[in-house]
């Protein structure tokens, strides 16, 4: 079976982002999606810390530490980009102005509930950042994650066991093994990687998935 690596997953997500979309790529893994957005499409990347029209990383030595993204990495601003303060930045998310956000996850339920901020372990230091705002604010929330944990448990689940980030907020899951829609109607398979059957994915997830 043709399991996607992280770059291939990012490329797959990028394919579904249309021209003109206002997009937030969260922090960590989803930020890789930016590398695969076609140059000829105008796509507007927003970062929670107050910029719209985020460009690629600067060349080494050219970093400006007052021009960073949500992951505190140095970035650049495209021509046509803009800076704004935090309340306006989160108004973009919470007011429904972002078309798409892409987030990582610990678990996603078939109904679109998301758990991605807290393992729930006692003693763990919780940190939420902008995840809850993005998850419920963007018009569509895409999750990008390995479908299985290292120990082989499905992260696409009937109901999340980790503390929730948001209820019924995810619409799609892009994983190393396939792409799934989730929501009020439950989960469906959109596509599976080569060599993986519907039967296989039902076994791996324990879910009665349909194509």
């Amino acid at each position, binding site marked *: 079976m043709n399991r996607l690596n992280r770059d291939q997953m990012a490329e797959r997500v990028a394919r579904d982002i249309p021209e*003109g979309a206002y997009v937030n790529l969260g922090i960590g893994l989803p930020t890789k999606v930016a590398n695969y957005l076609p140059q000829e499409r*105008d796509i*507007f990347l927003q970062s929670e810390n107050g910029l*719209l029209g985020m460009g690629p990383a600067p060349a080494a030595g050219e970093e400006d530490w007052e021009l960073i993204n949500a992951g505190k990495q140095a970035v650049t601003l495209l*021509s*046509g980009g*803009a*800076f704004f303060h935090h309340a306006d930045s989160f*108004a973009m998310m*919470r007011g429904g102005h972002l078309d798409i956000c892409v987030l990582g996850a610990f678990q996603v339920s078939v109904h679109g509930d998301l758990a991605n901020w807290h393992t729930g372990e006692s003693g763990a230091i919780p940190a939420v950042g902008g995840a809850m705002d993005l998850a419920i604010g963007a018009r569509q929330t895409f999750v990008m994650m390995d479908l299985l944990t290292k120990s082989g448990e499905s992260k696409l689940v009937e109901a999340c066991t980790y503390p929730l980030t948001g209820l019924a907020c995810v619409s799609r899951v892009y994983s190393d093994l396939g792409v799934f829609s989730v929501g009020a109607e439950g989960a469906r398979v959109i596509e599976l990687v080569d060599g993986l059957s519907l039967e296989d994915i039902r076994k791996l997830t324990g879910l009665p998935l349909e194509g």
Partner: protein
Amino acid sequence: MIDKSFDSAGAAVADIHDGASVMIGGFGTAGMPDQLIDALIARGVGDLTIINNNAGNGEQGVAALIREGRVKKIICSFPRQSDSHHFDAAYRAGSIELELVPQGNLAARIQAAGAGLGAIFTPTGYGTLLAEGKETREIGGRNYVLEYPIHADFALIKAQQGDRWGNLIYRKTARNFGPIMAMAARTTIAQVSDIVPLGALDPEVIVTPGIFVQRVVEIGRESA
């Protein structure tokens, strides 16, 4: 390539429909998007709900919309002015519904809509006629009135310069409601004096980032 510029005010307002809610920027005549309003009048649609600070002055803009009988309801803070005769007549004739909102509540409710809040407890209006029947609450020793966001299908605003991504800057007190209405409407249409090339607007001074603006029409300085 994304290009939000439209060739004419008429094309920019062509999908405003009967019964639409339409925010209109401007305080008095400063910031009033006259060309967009004229185009809206020319479209001939009616039953509109208009959100504006005033209810029209003289014969232009919102006053003309009311004169032409296109407005079912107006949400505003200050309808009564020396030259608001078209509103006055419609109001006395009972042909227009008025929701009178203190100006700060109007601004806050529009901003709340743009920011995705469900409701706000606001200090203004408590104990007055304008809070009658509304939920109130004492918080930290002070009394507040619960007010709901004002969303709209469209916002018509006026700015100084815009670019093809919809970024806007304004001029002096013509800024007024433009930035917050742009955030609160599903479709924001800005008439600008100039459409400038992408990158011409300094990213530090853009007041309304393009995410809040769907259409930009260049009107030119003379006619604006």
